[in-house]
């Protein structure tokens, strides 16, 4: 069950925080209606504005404002918030140490009917290799609600890879406490570790039922902050289970799978398998079709788990 659209949470938190903190500004590039920030313009007409379809300029304006002590949020769809403005993120934001929060919506295959041009298979890879930037991908409404104030309080650039619509709740415990720099262990287990991010966390939760029936005790860890990755959490779990599956809505090159492989390769080589887009471009389709097409369903996670366990 989904409690609220993620973009709704985005707007709610900003509405509250902008009242408390006059430094926060919200800049859009003609996608405010899609990303949920349109309403802010009525409440904060001077601090929520549009720069038109000009993402490079949006990034630069935000960087300039950040040098004056402001905390700008800039938004677009993931490909245009990252690969299109890669150099602006690198030079004007990251190198210049500007406190800008970059929000990309519709990551990976979730762009659905907008198709290949709007599907970022490479955004995490692009941003991850730029120094001095945090990458966070929300899982559900509650996690994102807790993450936003921490992102605002963090003094430095953050890329938020935001699925914008309603998605099943995962973090429902009343005492759930989120930490931007610590991985979330959703279920402990001993046979295999599934590191998952974004919409693939919900897919992993579906896979758990089948795994249980197969007598496989899986550990599920959400790596919501892909950079800097929680190395300790990755190493500790891999040492315990000695078999790893990584599930992400991104090219298996450059994303979370690569990040986990880098840690494991250096610290405790472990058999692993990556679930994600296998170095292909996107295409139009509804999510269930695309998940089948790109082998990103709960079934594919189960198969990967069986494979890594057999190779232990």
């Amino acid at each position, binding site marked *: 069950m989904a409690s609220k659209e993620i973009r709704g949470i985005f707007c709610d938190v900003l509405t509250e925080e902008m009242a408390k903190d006059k430094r926060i*500004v919200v800049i859009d590039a003609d996608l405010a209606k899609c990303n949920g920030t349109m309403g802010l313009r009525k409440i904060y007409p*001077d*601090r929520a*504005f549009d*720069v*038109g379809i*000009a993402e*490079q*300029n949006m*990034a*630069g*304006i*935000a*960087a*300039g*404002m*950040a*040098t*004056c*002590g*402001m905390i*700008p949020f800039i938004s677009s769809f993931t490909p245009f918030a990252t690969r299109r403005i890669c*150099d*602006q993120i690198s*030079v*004007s934001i990251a*190198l*210049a*140490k500007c406190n800008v929060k970059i929000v990309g919506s519709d990551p990976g295959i979730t762009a659905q009917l907008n198709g290949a041009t709007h599907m970022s298979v490479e955004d995490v890879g692009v941003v991850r290799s730029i120094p001095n930037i945090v990458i966070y991908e929300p899982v559900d409404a509650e996690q994102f609600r807790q993450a936003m104030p921490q992102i605002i309080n963090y003094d430095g650039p953050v890329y938020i890879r935001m699925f914008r619509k309603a998605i099943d709740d995962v973090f429902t415990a009343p005492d759930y406490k989120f930490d931007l720099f610590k991985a979330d262990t959703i279920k402990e287990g001993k046979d295999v570790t599934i590191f998952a991010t974004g919409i693939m966390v919900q897919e992993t939760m579906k896979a758990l039922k089948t795994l249980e029936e197969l007598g496989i005790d899986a550990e599920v860890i959400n790596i919501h902050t892909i950079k800097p990755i929680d190395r300790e959490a990755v190493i500790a779990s891999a040492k315990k289970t000695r078999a790893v599956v990584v599930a992400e809505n991104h090219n298996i090159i450059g994303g979370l799978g690569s990040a986990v492989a880098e840690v494991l390769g250096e610290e405790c080589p472990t058999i692993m398998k990556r679930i994600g887009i296998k170095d292909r471009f996107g295409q139009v389709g509804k999510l269930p079709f695309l998940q089948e097409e790109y082998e990103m369903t709960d079934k594919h996670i189960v198969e990967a788990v069986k494979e890594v366990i057999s190779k232990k």
Partner: protein
Amino acid sequence: MGTAELRNIAKQIRYYTTDEIATLGVGHIGGSLSIADLLAVLYFKEMNVDPKNPNMENRDRLVVSKGHAGPAVYAALALKGYFPMEELKTLNVEGTNLPSHCDRTLTPGIDMTAGSLGQGISAAVGMAKASKILDNGARVYCIIGDGESQEGQVWEACMSAVQLKLDNLIVFMDYNKMQIDGTTEEIMSVANPAERFKAFGFNVYEIDGHDIDAIVASIDGAKQVKDKPTMVVLNTVKGKGISFVENALVDCHSMNFNAEQKAAALEELK
């Protein structure tokens, strides 16, 4: 500060810029010398800045979007007292605070990192917008190159400066008509820049970029204009002040200096 004194400051900026580059033996001499007069006016007459407190909150700001003019900006900053004159000798030396292209995290007084062309003017727009929101009266100055204006982002930034009614933003275009591969006319024309910026909605002046009084007058004019950003097209000479650098034409973008050339150049700037 009067015209004669500002002329003298511009001369010193040229001298120390050349000393920095020629001591190292190579550097972006042409586009540094072309903006020396403007830097003299900005740092020694117009800008509300404090070299003892480079991060003063409500200060005026300068974004040198053509970041390769770093050496000239460093000479101006040192003369203004941001750091000791001797530090100018560290241009591009390993571990320096004075890199080829301006870096706000390294050099006191540098307001924005620039070097990847087209980006600084957007940051200047952001600073001017921030100053409006904060209502602190700060003015933002920005220097763009003519070759740089072939970058699409420059025009995105211009559209937004007009749309956001940033009358606290004054942009200067160093129209020296040359770039690395040839003249701007040969490579990709930006001819009639004043007309182009007028069409975008700017308040525009076109002046001799080496005329101190004209620079001062353009800034005075800009301060009177409401709801519009100002663009000042500076007709300049690339390499201005050193005859053999001027005569190198498009080859003066970045030049090597041997000991003999260094001596000749500094002699001419004395």
